[in-house]
C-alpha cells in the first residue's frame, strides 16, 4: 500500500496522459482538463508546506539566537506584512493602488530588477575569466563570442562584414548545434519519462 499504490498511480496517470494525446474526442479532453486543474490545486496546497518550512527555519534561528538572527526577523516581518495586507480586505486587497501593491512596486520590483541586473557584471567577469585561448574549444568559444559582441560596436568598414558573419553564425552553425542538443534532450527526457511511468526511476519517491 505504501509503495505499490503510488507506483500504480504514476503508471495509470502517465499512460492516460500519453494516450489522451492521440485521442481528440471530447470525453478525453474533459478528463485531461480536470487532471491539469488537480495538479494546479495540489501545488497550491503545497504552498502551505513552503510557508511552514520558511517560517519554521526563521523562527528557530531567532529562538536559537543564531548568527544573523536579526535578518530572520526581517524575513518574518516581510512575510507577515504581505500576508496581512493581502487578506485583510478580502479579494480587494491586491487591487492596484493598495498598500500591498505599493510594497510590490517599491520594494519587490526594484530589488528584483537589481538582482537581475547583476548579470551585466557577472557576464563581464565570466567572459574575462574563462575566455582564454588555452584550448581549441575555449578559443572557438572566445572567437565566436567576440564576433557576436562586435556587431554592436561601430567599426567602420569592417562592420558590414562582421554583421553578415554574426548573423550567419547565429542562423546556421548555431542552429545546427542547438538542434543536436534539442534532439538529445528530447530522447533523454522521453526515456526518463518512460522510466518514471514504468516505475524504474523512483528515487523521487524516497524510502521507508
Amino acid at each position: 500500500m505504501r509503495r505499490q499504490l503510488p507506483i500504480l498511480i504514476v503508471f495509470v496517470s502517465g499512460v492516460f496522459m500519453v494516450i489522451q494525446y492521440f485521442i481528440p474526442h471530447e470525453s478525453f479532453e474533459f478528463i485531461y482538463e480536470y487532471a491539469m486543474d488537480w495538479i494546479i490545486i495540489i501545488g497550491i496546497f503545497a504552498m502551505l508546506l513552503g510557508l511552514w518550512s520558511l517560517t519554521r527555519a526563521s523562527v528557530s534561528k531567532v529562538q536559537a539566537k543564531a548568527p544573523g538572527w536579526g535578518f530572520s526577523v526581517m524575513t518574518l516581518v516581510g512575510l507577515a506584512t504581505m500576508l496581512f495586507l493581502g487578506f485583510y480586505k478580502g479579494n480587494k486587497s491586491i487591487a492596484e493602488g493598495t498598500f500591498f501593491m505599493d510594497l510590490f512596486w517599491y520594494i519587490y520590483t526594484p530589488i528584483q530588477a537589481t538582482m537581475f541586473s547583476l548579470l551585466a557584471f557577472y557576464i563581464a567577469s565570466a567572459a574575462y575569466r574563462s575566455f582564454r585561448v588555452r584550448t581549441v574549444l575555449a578559443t572557438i568559444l572566445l572567437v565566436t563570442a567576440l564576433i557576436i559582441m562586435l556587431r554592436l560596436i561601430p567599426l567602420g568598414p569592417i562592420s558590414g562584414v562582421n554583421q553578415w558573419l554574426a548573423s550567419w553564425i547565429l542562423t546556421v552553425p548555431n542552429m545546427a548545434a542547438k538542434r543536436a542538443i534539442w534532439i538529445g534532450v528530447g530522447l533523454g527526457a522521453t526515456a526518463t519519462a518512460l522510466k518514471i511511468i514504468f516505475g524504474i526511476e523512483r528515487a523521487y519517491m524516497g524510502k521507508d
Partner: protein
Amino acid sequence: MNFLEKLLALDRRIIFLFIAIAVALPLFFTVKLHIEVTPVVRNLHNALEALPPGSKVLVSLDYDPGSMPELQPMAESFFRYCFMRDLKIIIIGLWPNGPIQANSALEVILNEPDIKKKNPKYGIDYVNLGYTAGNEVVIERMGSDIPVTFPKDYSGSKTEDLPLMKGVKNFNNIDFVYNLSAGYPGTVEWVLFGVDPYKIKLGAGNTAVQAPQIYPYLNSGQLVGLLGGMKGGAEFEIATGHPAKAVKFMFSQSVSHALICFFILIGNFAYFATRKKKGA
C-alpha cells in the same frame, strides 16, 4: 607578482567598477551613433507607413517590469509614431502588467511637446482595454468578438461606449497588430492564434533573448517585422526619424560591449605573455 600576473588574476571588482562606469557615463551624453536600420525593422516601418491615417492599430503589451529596459522604449516610440501619424491605438495585455506598462509609456509620450500639440483624446485616439486572463485563448476569442472578450476598459467604462471602439467587432476591423513580448504568451501565440487563422498583419518587438526564436516566422512571412532587443528599438526610432531612449541607451551598449571585448583581449595578452616567460 608582476603586473602581468596581477592582470591575469584581476580582482573581478575592478571589472565590475569599469562596467558600472561604462554603462553609467554614456547616459550623460547624447552621441550621434551610426545605427543602420536592418531589413526586419525597415519592413515593419514600411508596413506601418502604408496604413492610412485613422487606421486602427491593436497593441498587445505582453511583458512585466522585468523587461522594461528593453521593451518600454519600444512601447514609447510606437505610441509616439501612432499619434504623429494619426493612427488609432487600442491597447490590451495578455500579461496582467501589460496595460500598466502601457499607461506609464503613455504618460511619457503624452507629455512630449509635439504630441501635446496634437492633443490625442482618450476614447477617440487611444483606448486601454486592460488585461484578460486566458493567454492564447484570449486571441482566439478576439477573433470572433473583441467587445465580448474585453467588456470593460482599464478604468471600468464599457468598451462599447468608447467612440473609438464603434464598429470594432473583431480582427477584420483592425488594420495592424503590434505585439511587445517577453515570453509566453507573446509573439509566438499571436502568430499561431492570430496570424494563421485570422490573417492579421502582425509586427512585434521582443527581448533580445527571445528574438532568435521568432526569426523563423519572419522568413515565412507570418510576421511583418521584428524589433529585437534594445538595438531593434533604436533602429525603429531611427527609422521613424525620432531618436529617443533606445538610441541614447545604445551608446551605453556600445561602450560596455567594447569594454568587455577589451578585457578579453588584455586577459589573453597577459595569458600569452606570462606563458612565454614560464617557457623561457
